[in-house]
């Protein structure tokens, strides 16, 4: 089995921002990616202000320690960034920060997917809200 970097162990032992926002809150975007059969499922939720800044994030992850650490790190990374900035986050940043070995790169890919899925969900809800308001 892989040995883990100190940062992975830290996020695994003390995961940041664990939990859930109510899914139906209009300013929350939810991304659920992965599949139980593959051994990895991440749920990432972003609370986004009307000006497009991510004010808070929550996650829950089923997966190995590196998957848990990747999603925990992402919740810290996105806070205070704009939606445009968040969408540009690439998995290589996560690999670098957590010193993930090659066999764990898929964890970082999944975390990037989770960000994109959460933003997409927020945009869709936002559009609907705007349409309703119009």
């Amino acid at each position: 089995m892989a040995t883990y970097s100190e940062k992975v162990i830290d996020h695994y032992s003390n995961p940041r921002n664990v939990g859930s926002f109510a899914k139906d809150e209009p300013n929350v975007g939810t991304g659920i990616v992965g599949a139980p059969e593959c051994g990895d499922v991440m749920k990432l939720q972003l609370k986004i202000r009307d000006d497009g800044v991510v004010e808070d994030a929550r996650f829950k992850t089923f997966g190995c320690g590196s998957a848990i650490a990747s999603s925990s790190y992402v919740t810290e990374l996105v806070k205070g960034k704009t939606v445009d900035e968040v969408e540009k986050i690439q998995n290589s940043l996560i690999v670098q920060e957590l010193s993930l070995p090659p066999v764990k790169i898929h964890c970082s890919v999944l975390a990037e997917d989770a960000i994109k899925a959460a933003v997409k969900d927020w945009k869709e809800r936002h559009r609907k809200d705007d349409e309703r308001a119009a």
Partner: protein
Amino acid sequence: MAQPRVYMDNHATTPMDPRVLEAMLPHFTQAFGNAASRNHSFGWEAEKAVDDARETVADLIGGKAKEIIWLSGATESDNLAIKGVVEFYRDRGNHVITTTTEHKAVLDTCKALERKKLARVTYLPVDQYGRVSAEQVREAIADDTVLISIMLANNEIGTIQPIAEIGKVAKEKNVFFHCDATQGFAKLPIDVSELGVDLLSASGHKIYGPKGVGILWVRSKGPRVRLTAQMDGGGHERGMRSGTLNVPGIVGMAKAVEIAKVEMPAEAARTQGMRDRLHRLITDELDEVYLNGHPTERLPANLNLSFAYIEGESMLMGLNGSAHADLPAVAVSSGSACTSATLEPSYVLKALGIGDELAHTSIRFGLGRFNTNDEVDYVAERVIAEVKRLRDLSPLYEMAKEGIDLKTYFAGAQH
């Protein structure tokens, strides 16, 4: 000083019994002779030690001393049994019957023979508990079947196969029957005549003996089984396995067998008691914990559990000292030790028809001679705490509690 830690992975290997070490020690420095040296007392005493050991090991399984071939371990033993029979009896046919849940030492040997077009292999499926039936074996036997190879007990899930019933079919159909008994040897009573097997593999280090030594027992009469050697050289072991004998290892394995012969019944009862206690403590506290393998026809010291909604490797990380470095580490395994580097769910669990999502959540506990009830209580406590913590982190647990059907929700999800 080393950190205190708990070893509960006794299917992977066992610590050596101090009594075994004591028996081995003189054979490194004083009685160090080559058992094949015929011209002096150094050789004679080594040969005597090896012959005594042969008697001891043969006696445990109801075989004859001359039917024991010493070699390096169960992997070599499985290789020699399967390749040796297939090659020797190639005029008779080349069909081999085995099961999908055998150890890799059997499966990969079969695959190697297939690749070289030396054998046609039938891999029998197992039921939800990991068992194959004598009827399945009977139906699979063809005119050109030369060998059946089925394990006594599975290394991951502990399921015991109906070897005696299969042995009857093998005898009736005149097909040689090899049994990889690595996990059951010196743990369960074995009588090769009652089981009806013709070849039997076992290892030293799974029975509180040394690594690097094992046996292949080969029936000499009714029927006599012949093998093509896979190792050529000095013609040791009646030409079936050349190479200078590992005398300290052989003496050690025999000592381990001698101890097991006396202590096996009490030890089986004791390890089973601890195993059941561990199972009960865990299931009293946690929901959705599933037993893998057969509920009763299983090794007394084996417990294989799936903890729904949490992934096995993350669980190991919480137990094995990678995280929580302030607590004594717990050594258990996820899948089997041989495959846990690949990140693929266990092929054994998949063969039982357990979905990948549950196969990913399995942990194997292997109790053993040197475990204590205090260790069982500690392991249960750590497992319960870690499962609760990881389920609080698990989106699947949350969704399941909300009544969402995960199969439907994730149908067609990308892997």
